[in-house]
């Protein structure tokens, strides 16, 4: 099935995960991502080497993820905003125990139960920890169907490589939308490197212990510094972005995921009216790919940050740019999806010196 196929985003996530050697999925239903567990259930029912459990809750499912990961399995769970909140305790434990896992969040409008429309209000939750303690998770943000497939492979590989939880952030629209996708060739899990830390039964070898409890503070401190060194390496190695039409740009719009597609449409529109606009699209939200933006910012008149939230990533943009260029924010929280026309209006008025406030 390496030919092009038309598939919805949630199914792309499932198929790409299975092709990446993921053989365990645990989840609890929530709109708008139910087609992913549905896909995993039906695919794993067809094969003898997969485990699918619809747990009794999000908390149970993330703890099943911990268990499966501890045995060395490539494992995935998925949910949408309120459900991902419930998983945060387990994600903190995964980070502490240095266990790989892929967690998908197809974001919806919040806070609280919110609604089921596409939104980006969980940026802080994903990039600032979400759970307790000093930890980070890798956060990948696809914008296209093909990128969902590619980043799922990337997420599974990076989780194993760095022994850390990786999040894939989409939204309701990306989950429902169908686009043509070419899948990577499947990996045979048996061909993957043996995990020397996994709990596989201690017959004929010394026992291994995976723990998150270190009562002796110096030991806990040691873990923390080890994690920080790992996060530094991750920041160095995987930060990624798309800089589109930025070379000659006077104004750059920063956006990710669905918002970045809308922003790209807006860039095309204003360019046809003579405004030299570019798009800066973070593909990793943590680590935030700020260095290229920072070096570009000296030559820019304006940076506009557009999010389907009340303003979260804008903080990372400001931290990166360090005042070298004015940063204007435009957001639509609550599940409202802007049109390219609306965003081109924002770009036009900001570049004309009239800062437009969020609607």
């Amino acid at each position: 099935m390496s030919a092009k196929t038309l598939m919805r985003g949630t199914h792309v996530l499932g198929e790409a995960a299975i092709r990446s050697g993921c053989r365990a999925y645990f989840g609890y239903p929530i709109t708008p991502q139910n087609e992913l567990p549905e896909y995993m259930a039906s695919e794993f029912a067809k094969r003898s080497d997969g485990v699918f459990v619809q747990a009794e809750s999000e908390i149970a499912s993330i703890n099943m993820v911990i268990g499966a990961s501890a045995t060395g399995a490539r494992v995935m769970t998925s949910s949408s905003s309120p459900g991902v909140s419930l998983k945060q305790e387990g994600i903190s434990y995964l980070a502490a125990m240095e266990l790989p896992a892929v967690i998908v969040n197809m974001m919806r409008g919040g806070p609280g139960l919110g609604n089921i429309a596409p939104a980006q209000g969980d940026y802080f939750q994903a990039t600032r920890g979400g759970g307790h303690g000093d930890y980070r998770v890798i956060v990948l943000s696809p914008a296209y169907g093909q990128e969902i497939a590619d980043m799922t492979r990337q997420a599974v590989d990076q989780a194993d490589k760095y022994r850390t939880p990786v999040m894939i952030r989409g939204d309701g629209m990306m989950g429902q939308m169908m686009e043509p996708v070419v899948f990577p060739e499947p990996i045979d899990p048996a061909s993957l490197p043996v995990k020397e830390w996994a709990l596989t039964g201690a017959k004929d070898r010394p026992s291994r212990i995976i723990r998150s409890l270190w009562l002796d503070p110096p030991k806990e401190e040691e873990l923390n510094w080890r994690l920080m060194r790992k996060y530094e390496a991750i920041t160095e190695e995987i930060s990624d972005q798309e800089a589109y039409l930025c070379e000659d740009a006077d104004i750059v719009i920063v956006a990710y995921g669905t918002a970045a597609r809308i922003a790209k449409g807006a860039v095309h529109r204003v360019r046809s009216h003579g405004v030299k606009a570019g798009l800066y699209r973070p593909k990793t939200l943590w680590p935030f790919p700020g260095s290229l933006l920072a070096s570009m910012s000296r030559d820019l008149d304006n940076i506009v940050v557009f999010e389907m939230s009340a303003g979260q990533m804008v903080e990372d943009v400001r931290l990166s740019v360090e005042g070298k260029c004015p940063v204007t924010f435009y957001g639509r929280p609550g599940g409202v999806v802007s049109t390219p026309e609306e965003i081109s209006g924002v770009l036009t008025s900001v570049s004309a010196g009239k800062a437009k406030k969020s609607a």
Partner: protein
Amino acid sequence: MSLKIIFSGFGGQGVLMMGYVLAYAGMNEDKHVTFLPSYGAEVRGGTANCTVVVSDEEIASPIASSPEFVVAMNYPSMVKYQNMVKSGGTMFLNSDLITEAPSREDINLCKAPVNTLAHDMGADRSLNMVMLGIVAATTGMVSKEALLQAIEKVLQGKKQSLIDMNQKALEAGMKYVADNQ
């Protein structure tokens, strides 16, 4: 070139399949396509709609705020979408269920009794493919061959037996346009 179309009607009229087949055909022609079904707190017997974009370039937004084309399979859909159609665009109306005309002068109308056309060929349920044939013949978004191939792909397997009827319904729709030009 980038063309956006909204298909709308009530649940059971095959509205999503129209969009799916069109998107599949566009993909077969190596175009960029997006298919965005409506989702939300939908109810049985309620409205259904989907948006398809077929483009030579990468598609920015899969949402159509002013689509070139709208297909309305029932009256509430016409009311809902009549003001969204781009000026100079075309609205396709199922004239078996829609007797009024949209209150706009700046768009083209293409009316066709698709329930009747499907019924007359003994394929009541294929009214959606009749309408898709009409859309394809009028807009030229994708070729007939790509659509016939798409129907085969989409229905193969469990719905194998329905391929022939749906392909004939598509051709009947295209013929209707040729006969009424």
